[in-house]
């Protein structure tokens, strides 16, 4: 019977551990329901907060709100899509003032939450809004324009007449727009330029942006066949492609942010990056939320191409001039990319 004693001891141990554990945690929490505390929470999609891609760039915007506006900031990483509602509700129930949700996959959950919590401002990154909800702003970007710009640049810089793109899955509309914009931009310069866009759709959602080895292998395979400009568009998978281009000594083009600063090993070949300004866009919207000028509906962020940095001297003046011309034409609407916002089904 002495074994029973062990059970009791064990249960007691567990209980004391839990009790001692519960005590200190309670007091440190900031109370977001107070009017003077401005709390901003971020919910990621199934990616990670340190993905060096859209989750991280958005989080950096939130972090800037911490330093510039004195906001209390916190994030929750989603591990399964069925938890989107639960994770948003975790912030909402703590009376956060602004909740940022990252990625198109959270679109519906964000809309539902915005309706359920009308006092909280929601920012949906990469979430296009079909109806205007006053407390929900969809931060969207014309990725096709950024892709178009770098596609045009690639087509002008290529000597072999072959350019390539290594992308994450085309099931993500932003990736699709980057890839197809790239194709359209190259065709705009010269329809004869051969554009190879490869999507990494053969693995799960959680892997498609985090497979640098595949990205590199694919890029090298392209370069072996004569491609001399590689656009890497898809988180770490794309970064692998940039590394492959650097190894083979051909031009590389980054994505999302100016990757001159995030992929140091590709600096000497990095021609430009197709940028979407996630960080400033997020900060801008948080500021508006604080000042009370929060816009409902879609909020268009900026997209563009990054400076040439180290390869500045290799880009001819006429190419630079042409790029500025295209940039202007895209901005004022006189030139359109012709890319559908979402991959047509079928």
């Amino acid at each position, binding site marked *: 019977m002495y074994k029973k004693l062990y059970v009791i001891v064990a249960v007691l141990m567990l209980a004391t551990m839990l009790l001692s554990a519960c005590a200190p945690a309670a007091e440190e929490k900031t109370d977001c329901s107070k009017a003077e505390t401005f709390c901003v929470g971020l919910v990621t999609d199934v990616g990670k907060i*340190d993905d060096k891609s859209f989750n991280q760039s958005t989080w950096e915007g939130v972090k800037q709100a911490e330093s510039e506006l004195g906001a209390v900031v916190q994030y929750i990483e989603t591990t399964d899509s069925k938890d989107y509602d639960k994770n948003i509700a975790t912030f909402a129930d703590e009376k956060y003032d602004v909740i940022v949700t990252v990625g198109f996959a959270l679109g519906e959950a964000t809309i539902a939450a915005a309706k359920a919590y009308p006092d909280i401002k929601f920012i949906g990154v990469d979430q296009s809004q079909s109806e205007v909800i006053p407390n929900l702003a969809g931060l969207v970007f014309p990725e096709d324009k950024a892709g178009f710009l770098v596609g045009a640049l690639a087509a002008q810089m290529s000597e072999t007449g072959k350019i390539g793109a290594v992308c994450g899955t085309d099931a993500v509309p932003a990736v699709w727009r980057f890839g197809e914009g790239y194709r359209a931009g190259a065709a705009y310069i010269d329809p004869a330029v051969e554009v190879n866009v490869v999507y990494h759709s053969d693995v799960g959602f959680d892997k498609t942006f*985090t497979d640098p080895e595949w990205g590199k292998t694919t890029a*090298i*395979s392209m370069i072996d066949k*004569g491609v001399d400009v590689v656009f890497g568009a898809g988180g770490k998978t794309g*970064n692998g492609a940039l590394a492959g281009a650097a190894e083979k000594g051909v031009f590389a083009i980054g994505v999302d942010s100016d990757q001159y600063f995030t992929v140091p090993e590709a600096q000497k070949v990095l021609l430009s990056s197709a940028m979407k300004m996630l960080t400033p866009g997020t900060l801008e919207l948080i500021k508006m939320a604080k000042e009370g000028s929060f816009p409902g509906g879609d909020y268009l962020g900026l997209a563009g191409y990054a400076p040439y940095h180290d390869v500045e001297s290799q880009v001819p003046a006429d190419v630079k001039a042409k790029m500025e011309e295209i940039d202007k034409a895209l901005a004022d609407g006189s030139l359109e990319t012709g890319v559908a916002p979402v991959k047509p089904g079928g």
Partner: protein
Amino acid sequence: MEIRRYTFIALIIIVLIGVVVVVGKSEVSPGVIIVSMIATTIAVATPLTLGALTGVFCERAGVVNIGIEGMMLASAFFGWFGAIYMNTILKMGAFPSLIIGVIIAVITGGLLGLLHAVLSVTFKVDQIIGGTVINLLAVGISGFLNRQLFFEKGSIFGGQVPHAPGVLPRLHIPLLGDIPVVGTVFEQQPITIAAILLVIITHYVLFYTRWGLRTRAVGEHPRAADTVGINVYRMRYLNVIIGGLIAGLAGAYFTLESVPSFEPLMTNGRGFIALAAMIFGNWSPFGSWAAALVFGAASALQINLQFFRELIPPQWAFFQSSAVVGMVPYILTMLIMTGIIGKTRAPAADGIPYEK
């Protein structure tokens, strides 16, 4: 029998390359396609080959190892971390940092091998559990430390990911490397070359040395081995640790030879494919290598068919979807496995703890 199998595997690889040549020849010359396909095949096969060799060492000694995936992942992380630490904090320079990184990766693999040996040989824990523990542990530790050490609070590098020291350089092999066009195939990075050498060494050790004889003896019939004075526990311990060291090298391939970055879950199931390659190769080094190459060639086919997507004839339009082409390597493996290889035979005492 063996000859027939290898001929068949070689034929499959040739057919896979042939398909791409046929599809893409109007755009790129066949020579270029073949060289590129071979390069991709070898690159994809390297971690698989090493992982399969890990399995060969463990299982020939009678210890099932499904923890290859975790061993590779943990080694990839610690090797990468070590290299960055040496490069950024200790300022050792890129190449020495990389070498130390590889050493740390290999040691990490060895330590996990030791853990697996302690569990399965000393404590006689079900060997599937030992492997599962290692897989879970590796995912947790690498993900947790990657975040904790590199991101925000607690970061030892001030929140920014510091500059990685790059990747191991390609080696130029005299004579072979000087052949025009094909020569580039022989210009490989050190771990890739090591993988091929290790296949040959493992084959020699297993089948032509006393060590190998003893290893196989404890894997096939530990009781008999014990009777003739072979220390079963010691042989199992050492072989599992050797396997771990090789898995560590496979891990180093990911972060120090392929790409200079670490990603949570970056081994992406390749440890399990390596396991399949080992079974497929009938627990032999050359068989495993052949299986890894078939898988590599099938992956090369997948990448290249996407590249030549526009050239695929319309009646084959189904194959323009990257997800459909993505299935090809796996379906092929299954077909070959069942159609040609059929029944494979594990070492008789594989997976059974030895009781003195």
